[in-house]
């Protein structure tokens, strides 16, 4: 059995602090009860649950956090935020992970590559909301 050592270096701390800065939340408020993931209606489509992502941010594991699809599956319905017993705005943390990525690479979705048919048939709120969430 192999062990993975937990590192607490400068890189780990900086990642965690950046997420805290963007979201305005204290990531260490979380005590891993899992209520956010239990109530999340998209949990079955995520490769890491919401509370797992939060634990990884606490540990500063940047690559693991960013490589999961969790924050891109999150649709900001805010169910987790209103239910959190520690009053953490969990959805804001998901938004912070998205923003962290978008501030480096601002195009998660390439608008110019969307087929014209899609652009024409979709309601404006779907497009505006999507572009605001997925472009920097």
């Amino acid at each position, binding site marked *: 059995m192999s062990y993975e050592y937990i590192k607490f270096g400068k890189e780990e701390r900086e990642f965690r602090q950046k997420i805290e*800065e*963007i*979201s*305005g939340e204290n990531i260490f408020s979380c005590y891993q009860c899992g209520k956010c993931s239990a109530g999340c*209606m*998209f949990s079955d*489509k995520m490769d890491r649950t919401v509370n797992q992502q939060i634990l990884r941010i606490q540990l500063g594991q940047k690559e693991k956090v960013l490589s999961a699809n969790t924050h891109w*599956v999150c*649709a*900001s*319905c*805010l*169910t987790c*935020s*209103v239910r959190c017993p520690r009053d953490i*705005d969990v*959805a*804001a943390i998901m*938004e*912070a992970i998205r*923003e962290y990525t978008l501030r480096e690479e601002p195009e998660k*979705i390439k608008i110019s590559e*969307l087929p014209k048919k*899609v652009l024409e048939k*979709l*309601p*404006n*709120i*779907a*497009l*505006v*909301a*999507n572009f*605001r*969430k*997925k472009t920097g």
Partner: protein
Amino acid sequence: MVQYSYFPGCNLKTNAKGFEETAIAVSKKLNVELVEIPNWNCCGTVHTMTSDNIMKRIAPVRVLSRSKKHIETLEESPNQVVTLCSMCNSTLKIVSKEVSDNQDTLDKINYQLEDDELTYENDIEVKHFLEILRDSVGYEGISKKVVKPLKGLKVSPYYGCMLLHPEEAKIDDEEMPDVLESLVESLGAELVMSPLFKYCCGSYHIVDQENIVSSQVEKIVEAATRRGANALVVACPLCSYNIDQQQKAMAKESAGFKPIPIFYFTQLMALAMGEPVKINHFKEHFINPEPLLKELGLIGRKKTK
């Protein structure tokens, strides 16, 4: 007649025309006229949850300050701006709470608004039309205007996320709401409760991750139909589009799937109050509600004035 400053938002002008036209028609009947703000802009649809991005907060504050100017020109108007779209409702409410808590942010935004000769002073309240119906009109006032009770329509309320989340924007209790339920009952329709009343429809994922939306919609519709519903009532143009359009796609794929029509709550009100059917714009729905309404004798057969 009380006049409200009304912020439509973009979708009410494109693919939710039936929502707006019916709302304006029933509002006149109930003496709470909705008067559209001149030269409004998009509120930004989704609220930014970042703590450090002021730019994304300028658009909703501009809407609020324009509405304030508009209210001054109205008669008997309370200091409130009314929205129909639940996403606009939540965006405007959150931002107005944020700037009232944080003077520094407001000053920075006001500095940006100088070019438009606007300032915002935290002096306006955002209301969803459902709140006006509940608090100012009252369900009794609504049922008095009903000329054609919606008998036979088994409606399941679907709130979606943005009417109930977050704390700053909710129009009712987030886990046990009853505003749509009471409204449906006051119109004479049968109420069907579904546990998935706020199960997110997938929202803006419809643009690039349609599979997420379709699996959500399948569960929402299944939960409602299994309990006997033959229609859903919604308040959000995006929920409506997602559920409506995905159902059509699902019906094409599997013959066993039975789609149910989606109504905006104002469409049900307009039907019950005997407004002309054409303001509902049923032709724009993917699942046309007209066959069901005809079968139940709610439209067609007898002509009502």
